[in-house]
């Protein structure tokens, strides 16, 4: 009995494999295949009639919250967003089915990446039971068909270790950097402007933004040799200008999301003082979902 309990508590993980992380071929291979998994179109102009960009953001924010609440692996959310975008790029979808699609995509991504995946029942509860497990399972098949069962997409998360290991970074800061990078990546996945960017660029831009945000680049200029951006661009074969732009865009998104968060916090506090703490229907933080450490990033 005790053994069983212990088994239920721990997720057994493989250690990072130096054979994979130190071999340049792996990174090169990822760079070669990543474009295959991008959505085909910027679909809001071409395919979708009923769905607006802000609705994608709504469903993305919800998906991120579910993934966080369920403590999913980091790559589950970006991967699910990849499925969602690829599906929406080919299938005109109604607004009222968008949440179902989001749930299906999380269901699939979770099954692919996790040892203990999200269950259909749980996901349906998160939609406030607006969909049923049966429907989730049915549409899973449809989505799989449209994705051509091609689920092992490359995500920005796949690049993090490869990039970070090639930078002269202080060992004691690595965990923090990783966490910030993951947060940036999640933030990018909620924003449609990044949907057509290659994952390597999002990853590289996020690493750049994280290092700048933590002011690790200015601490000891001499250690970088080239500027940070040049070095980053070299690692993933990105053009320096494009990468710079991407990093700036990421920082903008972070800033606006923080601003929004703060505004809503204020609004919420006002409402709370007006209605009392148990007031119903409070507009809560939009970005309460964003991992809290975003707020530690120095801009």
């Amino acid at each position, binding site marked *: 009995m005790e053994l069983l309990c212990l088994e239920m508590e721990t997720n057994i993980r493989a250690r990072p494999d130096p054979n994979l992380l130190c071999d340049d071929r792996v990174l090169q291979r990822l760079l070669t295949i990543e474009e295959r998994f991008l959505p085909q179109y910027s679909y809001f102009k071409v395919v979708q009639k009923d769905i607006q960009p802000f609705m994608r953001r*709504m469903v993305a924010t919800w998906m991120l919250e579910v993934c966080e609440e369920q403590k999913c692996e980091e790559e589950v959310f970006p991967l699910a967003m990849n499925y969602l975008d690829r599906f929406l790029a080919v299938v005109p979808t109604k607004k*009222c089915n968008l*949440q179902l699609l989001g749930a299906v995509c999380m269901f699939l991504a979770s099954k692919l990446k996790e040892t203990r995946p999200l269950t259909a029942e749980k996901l349906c509860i*998160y939609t*406030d039971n607006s969909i049923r497990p049966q429907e989730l399972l049915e549409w899973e098949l449809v989505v799989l068909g449209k994705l*051509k069962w091609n689920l092992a997409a490359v995500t920005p998360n796949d690049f993090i270790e490869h990039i970070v290991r090639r930078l002269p970074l202080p060992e004691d800061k690595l965990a923090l950097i990783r966490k910030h990078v993951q947060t940036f990546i999640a933030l990018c996945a909620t924003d449609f402007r990044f949907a057509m960017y290659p994952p390597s660029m999002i990853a590289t831009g996020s690493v750049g933004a994280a290092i700048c945000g933590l002011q690790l680049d200015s601490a000891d200029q001499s250690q970088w040799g080239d500027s940070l951006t040049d070095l980053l661009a070299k690692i993933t074969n990105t053009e320096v200008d494009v990468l710079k732009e991407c990093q700036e865009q990421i920082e903008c998104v972070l800033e606006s999301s923080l601003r929004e968060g703060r505004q*809503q916090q204020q609004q919420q506090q006002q409402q709370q003082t007006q209605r009392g703490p148990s007031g119903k229907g409070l507009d809560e*933080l939009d970005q309460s979902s964003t991992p809290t450490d975003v707020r530690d990033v120095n801009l």
Partner: protein
Amino acid sequence: MAAPKRIPAAPRRPARRNLFGPVDREQLQLEYQAALRKDLDEASLRWGFDFRSDKPLEGSHFLWESVPGAGVPLLYRCQDAGRVQKTAETRTPPKRRRSELPQREKENIPLTENIFNVEKTPEKEEKAGMKRKQTNITDFYQAKRRMVWMPRKSGE
């Protein structure tokens, strides 16, 4: 629950919430059936096989021949309701008429919707007796390895 206009993405606090109002179940079911039908039609075209009537289509790229159901692994025997009665016989594929479809050098390139463009030939179909470096399940199931129901490469 209508989305507040002011802050488009502003959710309620609990992650558990309905974002876009009630789902039209009947409509959803119709769309699901339609999507499945479309998938099946596309698969039929692609494989030259009518999966509904369990018969090969005329004029396809494949020549289908029957093998006894008992001779194939369980996985490939008909299991779903519509086809249960026909387990005695199962089709094998496809001797591809090789010249007709160009071999593509890459797998898993799903970027196009056009079913004809995504057609790829797994190398193993090309030559039955080809030597492999790596052990493959098909090495142990030699006689049965041509059996397919569904596209054999999930990535296509």
